[in-house]
């Protein structure tokens, strides 16, 4: 910038709606044409969408047929009927307060982790404790809770557990892989590089297939891993390779001076990484880390392919009931909203951190 400390913005001599309209919608003929086209598109689509979503929608019905007879819009009665199945899968009906608690607990912990004042050494132990509580709540078998085998887990809690555990385990793994890829020991560098590139080079679906088809072959007879754990392993493997690359990006952005200064202090390799390098690198990588979390959260939906009842698959299961056949769109819209709510919040959070980091770097 030049000496004027004023940002170069749109010229606005006087404020007011008319001037705002002229500057933002009708600045020149091309602009005006685009505005007209967009308005036309909105006029054509929005009322129809609104009709379907609300005005012509049916909120009370006992089957899809009743719904379709009552109105041409969405059949929200279906969601009213099946939301428990979609949200909690096949978890025993009267015990569903437990997964609900798990969801609330995980959301609360995620919220707490977003606040800077909780970024202390207690965060990691708190998360471990949370995951233990989550395990107790979901499995039960202690404290008077009835035992629920994990084949019956499903819906939103399953999706969240898959995503959070994947990130929690993959994160330290990813840090080690990133350090390994930048190590000056050729064998370690080669192993880490091959692992990262191999995993990133193939679709996540093929990793899930591999976990579900090949794992039983790879392990000795009698050592059986259930479907949930197999999917979880695949997701961890997948997430760790992507996290490794994110962390490596952070490591690369540090100046050489930081490494030299740490060496000059006489720190060992691990002290140097733990005290000097990683704290800085990880701070820079928070926004891309959150983006990876979003990706992993979305990609848990791929477990539908190997038949786990996560949020996605529970939604698909909800309209198998003959009475509710043909309400797939409603189910998809419902779970889309849930996924969107989570991912949108996370992406906004990552953007705000990014902005703050950019500001602190400019200073």
């Amino acid at each position: 910038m030049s000496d004027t400390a004023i940002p170069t913005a749109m010229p606005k001599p006087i404020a007011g709606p008319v001037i705002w309209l002229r500057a933002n919608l009708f600045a020149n003929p091309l602009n005006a044409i685009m505005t007209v086209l967009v308005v036309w598109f909105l006029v054509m689509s929005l009322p129809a969408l609104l009709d379907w979503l609300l005005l012509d929608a049916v909120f009370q019905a006992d089957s899809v047929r009743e719904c379709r007879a009552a109105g041409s819009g969405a059949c929200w009665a279906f969601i009213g009927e099946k939301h428990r199945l979609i949200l909690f899968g096949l978890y025993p009906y009267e015990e569903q307060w437990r997964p609900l608690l798990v969801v609330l607990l995980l959301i609360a912990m995620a919220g707490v982790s977003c606040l800077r004042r909780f970024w202390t050494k207690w965060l990691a132990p708190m998360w471990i404790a949370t995951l233990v509580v989550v395990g107790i709540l979901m499995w039960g078998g202690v404290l008077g809770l009835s035992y629920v085998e994990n084949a019956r887990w499903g819906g939103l809690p399953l999706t969240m557990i898959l995503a959070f555990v994947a990130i929690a385990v993959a994160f330290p793994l990813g840090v080690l892989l990133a350090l390994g890829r930048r190590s000056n020991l050729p064998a370690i560098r080669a192993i880490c590089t091959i692992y990262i590139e191999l995993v990133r080079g193939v679709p996540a679906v093929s990793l899930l297939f591999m976990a579900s088809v090949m794992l039983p072959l790879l392990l000795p007879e009698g050592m059986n891993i259930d479907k949930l754990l197999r999917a979880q392993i695949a997701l961890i493997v997948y997430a760790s390779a992507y996290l490794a690359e994110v962390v490596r990006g952070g490591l690369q952005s540090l100046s050489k001076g930081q490494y030299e200064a740490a060496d000059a202090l006489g720190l060992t390799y691990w002290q140097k990484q733990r005290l000097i390098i990683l704290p800085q690198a990880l701070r820079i990588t928070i926004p891309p880390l959150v983006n990876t979390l979003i990706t992993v959260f979305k990609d848990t939906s791929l477990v539908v392919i190997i038949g786990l009842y996560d949020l996605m698959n529970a939604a698909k299961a909800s309209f198998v009931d003959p009475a509710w056949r043909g309400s797939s769109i409603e189910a998809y819209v419902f779970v889309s909203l849930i996924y969107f709510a989570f991912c949108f919040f996370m992406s906004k959070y990552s953007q705000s951190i990014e902005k703050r980091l950019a500001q602190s770097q400019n200073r």
Partner: protein
Amino acid sequence: MAAHPAQTGATAGRPIPKASRAVFWNDPRVRGIFYQILAVALIGGAVWWLASNTIENLNSRNIATGFHFLGREAGFDIGENLIDYSPADSYFKALLVGVLNTLRVAVIGIILATIIGTIIGIARLSKNWLVAKLASIYVEVVRNIPLILQLFFWYSLITEFLPGPRDALHPMAGVFLSNRGLKFPLPAHEFAYDLAMVLFALGLIAAVALGHWAKKRQDATGRHFPTAWVNLGLIVGLPIAGWLLAGAPLTFNAPVLQGFNFVGGASLSPEFSALLLGLVIYTAGFIAEIVRSGIQAVGKGQTEASLALGLSKGQTLRLIVMPQALRVIVPPMTSQYLNITKNSSLAVAIGFPDIVSVANTTLNQTGQAIEGIAIIMAVFLTISLSIATFMNWYNKHIALVER
């Protein structure tokens, strides 16, 4: 870990010769070699353990390893194929059909997603508030919903909510949209169309030659040549002229309803359409962000300097902004192209016969799980590595020279 001795060794000062004081394991080189041997031994041990388990398991289940099964008769039909295929063909050919289907979706998807993504990315930077807002809503919605959910959504919409072939939507002559997919006419095989194709190819060659000539002439005399308009004439006008000269035939091979389905014309199956639609809409959201940040990465000062020199807005965009934005855009764009290719494997969820779904059928039928997975991975790794190699070459080619 022996952290303490190393620390004191370092702080105590380097001049002291290592041999006299330090034990050999304090030598970083020795330690490095030790760590490496340890790592290799651990990995090797793990691999050996897994491999021996596998061999044992395979033996106890009487599964023969190897790729001999590829020559056997596949025995299953594939709904869509670019090459002739029947259930009597070998597994190898079935897998080849799968690979070609993957590539077909990927290539068409990449082209469409690039076009739509670029438009939306530029729209996000528009000074028109409404256009910018709409584009950013698109990006937010599309990127925050899992792709597989979007695929199911489109597939449901096509197969459940579109009418059957008898009451197919009929937006224009010869085009039918039904729950059996999209049917559209193809020009019938005639001399005029062949001529147009040949002229199109010639026009392309002529356009390239003309570009060279115009550049040379501009260097020599300074005069500009309206290449864009002349090229448009060569590439579009020439084929149309040829077609008109050959009598302008309008014979189409149009789809016709016969019984319960259409015959003739070309078609896109519901599975292919849903997969393509989902991939393109999803990836365009990511490409839009890449294009937007690429353009924003070119500082305002660059545009100002160019305008101050008297260059027009178009010249500024073409000569200053685009070449610099491309450097920022190309690397992440390549990884999006890679993502489209990898994400096309979600075809298996809606039943489009891509390589993953064909390999999956194969491994279910033959029990050759390891080989099946290996084939899937080999195919994708080949594609990934080729794209990565190209990207590295390109990056080196366009990297900014700095000191």
